[in-house]
């Protein structure tokens, strides 16, 4: 590390592109969205009038708002928990010195590589009536018909597709975490009588994976709040708004209803929710880490 003052100029030069781009395309828009959320604007006219928190009131008063929040909460919880749980299960399986483990890793990571658009379209076809899932469920005597066109199954179906796509990514993160656990701990545990798989997992593996879980939870939360393309191509927010989540609603407010003030208020809401959750997670996990050490 070189700390002489004459290098400060060089540091400024090296940082200039990244700093300017981040300022223009991240911090300026952040400030702008906060400013816009207390103004009324239809997206076209040059007039942006200050309205205080009126846009937030309008947003909350919309009859659809409660449904949007419900969908967002269900979607986030419904994707984060299963994709982490399945990802962890896959990692534990793929970490065992058994045949097929490389195939398992490759196949379960593959869905992460395809785009949400491709995966979404493929799942629309597989969930259509007479499609793959209709056939498979038919074996059990259930005939759901079209899974995407049905308000009671659409959200669950999008969640299933999202989980299929993200579980392999979480597996990779957990596999990296499993590598950091020294084998000696299991040997020491075995001497203390910790021999069966479940006890080993509960007392050694899971606590040792704490840092991985911390990171996996945060990144999955961030990803789930962002999910737009899957919903756009699979359901268009429908049927009867049953899959309209906050990010979909923001787009709809701005580009379909030309209600930019409300869209900005909704963006601000999303910003606050994500920030509060992330900071909350960081505080929760760091406190836990301190308590243990």
């Amino acid at each position, binding site marked *: 590390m070189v700390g002489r003052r004459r290098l400060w100029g060089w540091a400024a030069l090296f940082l200039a592109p990244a700093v300017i781009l981040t300022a223009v*395309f991240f911090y300026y828009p952040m400030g702008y969205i906060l400013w816009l959320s207390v103004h009324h604007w239809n997206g076209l006219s040059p007039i942006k009038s200050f309205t205080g928190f009126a846009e937030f009131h309008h947003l909350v008063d919309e009859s659809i708002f409660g449904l949007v929040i419900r969908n967002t909460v269900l979607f986030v919880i419904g994707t984060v928990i299963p994709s982490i749980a399945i990802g962890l299960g896959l990692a534990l399986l793929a970490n065992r010195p058994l045949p097929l483990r490389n195939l398992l890793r490759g196949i379960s990571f593959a869905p992460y590589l395809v785009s949400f658009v491709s995966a979404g379209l493929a799942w629309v*076809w597989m969930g259509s009536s007479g499609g793959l899932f209709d056939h498979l469920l038919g074996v059990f005597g259930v005939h759901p018909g079209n899974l995407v066109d049905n308000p009671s199954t659409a959200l669950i179906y999008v969640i299933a597709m999202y989980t299929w796509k993200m579980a392999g990514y979480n597996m990779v993160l957990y596999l990296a975490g499993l590598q950091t656990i020294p084998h000696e701990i299991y040997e020491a545990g075995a001497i203390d009588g910790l021999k069966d798989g479940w006890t080993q997992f509960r007392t050694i593996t899971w606590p040792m994976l704490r840092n991985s879980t911390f990171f996996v939870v945060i990144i999955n939360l961030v990803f789930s709040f962002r999910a737009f393309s899957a919903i756009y191509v699979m359901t268009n927010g429908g049927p009867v708004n049953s899959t309209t989540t906050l990010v979909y609603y923001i787009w709809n407010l701005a580009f379909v209803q030309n209600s930019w003030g409300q869209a900005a208020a909704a963006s601000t809401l*999303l910003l606050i929710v994500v920030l509060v959750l992330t900071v909350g997670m960081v505080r929760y996990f760091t406190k836990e880490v301190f308590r243990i050490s």
Partner: protein
Amino acid sequence: MVEVTPVSKPGPVFSRTRRVKFWRYVPLMVLAILGFGFPFYWIIMGSLSSNTAISTGSIPLFPISPHWANYRNAWLYTNFARQVLNTLVMSVAVTVAQVITSSMAGFALARIRFPGRQALFVGFVATLIIPFQVIALPIFVLMANLHWINTFGALIVPTAVNAFGIFLYRQFFLTIPEALEEASMLDGANPWQVLWRVYWPLARPATVTLSLLTFIAEWNSFYLPFLFTETKTMYTVQLGLVAFQGEFATVYNLLMAATVFISIPVFILYLLGQRAIVEGIATTGTKG
């Protein structure tokens, strides 16, 4: 793939415990492989099916008479060649831009001590948390005012910096011994030359990882090109795919064929750079 130290050491091949473990876990693995892999197989089967098979939902489990013409038709029905070109231009430009901006910023943050260094690093990393949708509207307004909508400028410039790249290079440069830098400085090289001639070549693994992940992310990206393009001549492949669905809603065999060929480049890159991709993802988890 990640090299993993086995949790349970492999015992003698035919030992009893090993056999028990085999029968306990291998069926689970087969189940998981089928669950995650079958949709891919089914998509390919769909893409090779006849119109009748698709519309009646009677897809054969094995390709008895594959309709290869579906691929040709799907390619010809739309403007995919143009969209592939657009996407290539966008993805390559963004990748190159991110490698340059990230390695420069990562170098300054790792190797030069200046006031506010830590705050700046936090300021970069914080951008990873906020969803793009939060800031998309102001960027759209900015692009509209610049008259950049429907141009490559709008597709490339807003994503020319990536905090993940800065993080990756910074972590990498921190591991390089200081003596190397001091030696090159004594040789009369200035920091610019030290970065590009000494450090950057050493950071090849970081460059490979960032390039692969960025290229794949750009190839697959939807929301940004969706907002910032207007005409089909500027569409990227993902937008083309959505437009295809709009026009040929239930012609699923052609739609699946399009889905397959649009995903091929990503899988080729994955097969070539599997290790770098997986390690890149794992690094964010273990060093974050």
